[in-house]
């Protein structure tokens, strides 16, 4: 039994993140915590697994108990002996580079003998068919493969409580289905699951209780009917699986991919021929994890030197240099693309002939005027993303690319980004959005290109 008694969490002296949380979780129960970004879902998860105190310097009052044992004052390894964690970004999960060693690492650290380790591995492999992932480098795995490995590692640890912080945020539909199956198996095994999630549709059948978190409080316990009927009023993502709307496959013929070929390490090949895109359109690029969406961006922007490509814009073949000059990219992790020490300088960087008037307009439009002298790295995630979008707007590129812009985003922020992108679209540019987020693509894209249709095993011609 996990108990949170009057749990309040503070950052610094007076920044209260959680306010008097009371929650009893029975053994084997599955709790879904949902709510808007910043509502405190992840803080509850990080309080339970102890990371909030160890890594974020948070202070708390109240009690967190597992089977009446108070976690206050416990070392992180002591908490980790009882509670296992799955993080939003699977990168945070891996200490070893080899996947098998990673699965065994926890068992080595709790001093199990080799026979017991093998027995736990066999037990895990009976439940989860992931043998193909053993003995591989974590850097060669797709986001989906990494995440299912994280869940398997939690099971193998033998912990009776698993907390999961937005485990589906980087996954495609196929891996969300696999994750759901794995969670169902864990639940059947009597493991307690506490899941913080924006994407709720895949958990509505699994969760015993669905709790809406708002402004650091457990605002309301929702029934499934309430959730299904009022998800939008509550500011939540769709409670039922969203299907990609039927869209025009190709509109316009301004930019033509005559040929794009790329061979992957694992033998697969991405081969696109004679696909055209039109100015003034927004294209959604979809496909399962690892099918080459990021590669598509790299080749189209001229960042990749390895693949073969022939791309024509209004009758003129664009070489890699031309593509680089005419493209802008908003990356999934915007921390990679902020270089200067003020927002204003950041937006001006690499943009020629930018008038102050235009700059002010863009800053105002993205609600960045007040922040223009701040260091970009001191901003929140959403603000950083708006700075990256502002620099793209000022560069005035013909081809604008977004890589998973709504990963881990709630409904309100997803709609906000969708609106921003639609406003960016003009008759002089083409916008490409790589995303797994079907709700977002339905809201934003004019056409969809599914890259899976262009992926073939290397042996096939």
């Amino acid at each position, binding site marked *: 039994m996990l108990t949170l008694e009057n749990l309040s969490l503070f950052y610094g002296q007076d920044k209260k993140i959680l306010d008097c949380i009371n929650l009893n979780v029975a053994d084997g129960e599955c709790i879904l915590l949902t709510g808007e970004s910043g509502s405190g879902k992840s803080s509850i998860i990080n309080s339970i*697994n102890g*990371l909030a105190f*160890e*890594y974020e310097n948070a202070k708390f009052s109240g009690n967190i108990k597992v089977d009446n044992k108070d976690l206050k004052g416990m*070392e*992180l*390894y002591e908490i*980790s*002996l009882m509670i*296992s*964690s799955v*993080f939003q*970004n699977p*990168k*945070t*999960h*891996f*200490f*070893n*580079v*080899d996947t*098998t*060693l990673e699965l*065994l*690492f*926890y*068992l*080595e*650290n*709790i*001093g*199990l*003998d*080799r026979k017991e*380790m*093998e027995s736990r*591995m066999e037990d895990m492999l009976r439940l989860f068919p992931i043998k193909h992932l*053993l*003995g591989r480098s974590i*850097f060669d795995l797709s986001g989906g493969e990494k995440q299912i490995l994280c869940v398997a590692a939690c099971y193998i640890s033998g912990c009776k409580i698993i907390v999961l912080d937005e485990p589906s945020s980087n996954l495609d539909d196929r891996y969300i289905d696999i994750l759901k199956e794995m969670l169902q198996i864990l639940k059947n095994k009597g493991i307690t699951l506490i899941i913080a999630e924006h994407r709720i549709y895949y958990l509505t059948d699994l969760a015993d209780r669905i709790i809406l978190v708002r402004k650091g409080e457990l605002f309301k316990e929702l029934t499934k009917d309430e959730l299904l009927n009022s998800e939008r009023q509550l500011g939540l993502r769709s409670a039922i699986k969203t299907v990609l709307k039927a869209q025009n496959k190709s509109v316009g013929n301004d930019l033509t991919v005559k040929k794009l070929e790329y061979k992957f390490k694992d033998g697969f090949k991405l081969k696109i021929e004679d696909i055209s895109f039109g100015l003034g359109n927004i294209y959604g690029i979809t496909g399962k994890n690892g099918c080459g969406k990021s590669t598509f961006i*790299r080749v189209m*922007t001229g*960042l990749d030197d390895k693949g073969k490509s022939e791309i024509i814009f209004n009758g003129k073949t664009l070489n890699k240099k031309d593509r*680089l000059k005419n*493209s*802008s*990219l908003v*990356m999934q*992790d915007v*921390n*990679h*693309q*902020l*270089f*200067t*020490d003020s927002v204003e300088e950041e937006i001006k*960087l*690499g943009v020629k002939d930018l008038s102050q008037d235009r700059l002010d307009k863009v800053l105002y439009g993205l609600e960045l005027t007040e922040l223009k002298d701040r260091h970009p*790295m001191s901003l929140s995630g959403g603000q950083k993303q708006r700075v990256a979008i502002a*620099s793209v707007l000022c560069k005035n590129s013909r081809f604008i690319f977004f890589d998973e812009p709504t990963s881990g985003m709630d409904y309100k922020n997803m709609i906000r980004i969708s609106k921003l992108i639609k406003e960016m679209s003009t008759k002089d540019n083409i916008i490409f959005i790589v995303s797994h987020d079907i709700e977002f693509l339905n809201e934003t894209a004019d056409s969809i290109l599914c890259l899976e249709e262009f992926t073939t095993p290397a042996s096939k011609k």
Partner: protein
Amino acid sequence: MYYIKDNRLNPNPITKFFVVVLLGFTGVHSINHYSEWAVVIVISAMYFINGFKKDAIKNILWFGVLFFVPDFSALEKFPIFILMMLSLFALCRMFYLPFAAGKFMIKTSDVGSIISSMDAIKIPKEVSIPIAVMFRFFPSFVEEKNSIKMAMRIRGIETKNPVKYLEYVAVPLLIISSNIADDISKAAETKCIANPIKKTRYVSVRIHLIDFIYAVTISVIVAGGIICSH
């Protein structure tokens, strides 16, 4: 037995560390050219048998280029501007051997074997854990650095001015490095790395024949090189 890469051809991290330290002496006490080439070829052969074919070739090519850089005594004859330019290369040339051995150590040692081998020689965990985290940092860092490079290219950040380039690259690199260090520490701590009990290892790190071959060959070459250079 679950599939874990065969490490019979991969020396123990302690052996690799010994070789790095040994070759460190060649920075201050140079060895003759034949011995230098012999060391480079041995390191490339080690890369090769461990499946890092590209690195094996790169190692030889890099040394091949640096080999033609004159040493400091020859550089003195050049005008000051050329001397300044070539000094950097001469410095790289001077420390190439320990650098190459260090790169081989980082590239081919996994954190598990590093911790195991340090456990074996009774290094306290206060020392072994930070070293293991440091090793784990490099592959993540390379991945993240490539993304930053990509972002710089698409933002049109010119690389012609190295000072400006460093100024730009420093901000994301520092933030990303701190995030990587945090992520790795979280991963290690939530896997009970700090658990004070006696730990077990699924793959025990043993001394194989390759350890003797690697350590003895390099020792003989270095000793021979020092003797011949006199």
